[in-house]
């Protein structure tokens, strides 16, 4: 029994070593660069991996399997956050809305710097971070974003618009 357990642990440790960097990075950039949260979610994923590893049939690659678990955990996390913390949009913020595409084109010509982008993202509210990473890191469509966040497609579209506007505003301030 002990030998079997240690073999299982060894197999798990090898898998863990192979994928922990990617899984952690996957969460870290998608939940607003929060180290503690990224650690928690990574641990949850690897707990499932440990439990299910012996039953893994190999119908897909281990990487695909692990990232499937990670994606589900992330979607659960997004849904939970959206349910518990509804987005608040102040009147002054609504007044300041302009066309983000126009400003983004001007900025993109100079190319976005990743440090600057990260700083801006960190300053945005949680909902804006979520929608921008879903849209531009994961290439989700509006429909997929709406499903993930548990909101309507219209709400997702308008949230994305506001997120872009806020991002551009922060980026301009960061550049100064």
């Amino acid at each position: 029994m002990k030998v079997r357990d240690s073999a299982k642990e060894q197999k798990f440790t090898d898998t863990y070593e192979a994928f922990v960097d990617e899984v952690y990075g996957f969460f870290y950039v998608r939940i607003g660069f929060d180290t503690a949260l990224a650690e928690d979610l990574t641990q949850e994923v690897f707990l499932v991996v440990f439990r299910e590893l012996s039953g893994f049939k190999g119908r897909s690659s281990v990487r695909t399997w692990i990232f499937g678990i990670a994606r589900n955990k992330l979607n659960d996390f997004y849904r939970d956050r959206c349910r518990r913390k509804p987005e608040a949009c102040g009147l002054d913020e609504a007044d300041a809305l302009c066309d983000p595409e126009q400003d983004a084109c001007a900025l993109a010509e100079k190319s976005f710097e990743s440090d600057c982008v990260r700083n801006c993202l960190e300053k945005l509210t949680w909902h804006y971070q979520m929608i921008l990473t879903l849209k531009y890191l994961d290439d989700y469509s509006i429909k997929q974003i709406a499903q993930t966040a548990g909101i309507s497609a219209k709400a997702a579209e308008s949230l994305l618009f506001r997120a872009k506007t806020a991002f551009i505003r922060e980026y301009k301030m960061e550049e100064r």
Partner: protein
Amino acid sequence: MKKTNDPFAGAFDNFENTAPTERQKQKMLSFVLEESRRQESGFLQKLGEWIAVKPWRFAFCASALQAAAFTLMFGTRYTNLLMSIFGG
């Protein structure tokens, strides 16, 4: 596939290479192994949990098993004993 006409598309490209430190990795590994060992229980503990979760299923299983076993052991005497207990 990234949309090429969206000026935002390129802005988020360089985030993927964010790895944890060795200390973080070790901490997470220790936690996962410890937690898994705690969750992995022996046969008796699993049986106990199963009974707690599905008591009716356990009762029916136990009843069917004892009826089959005792009938095999004592034959009609066992059936008669039960009938006398229940007033038959």
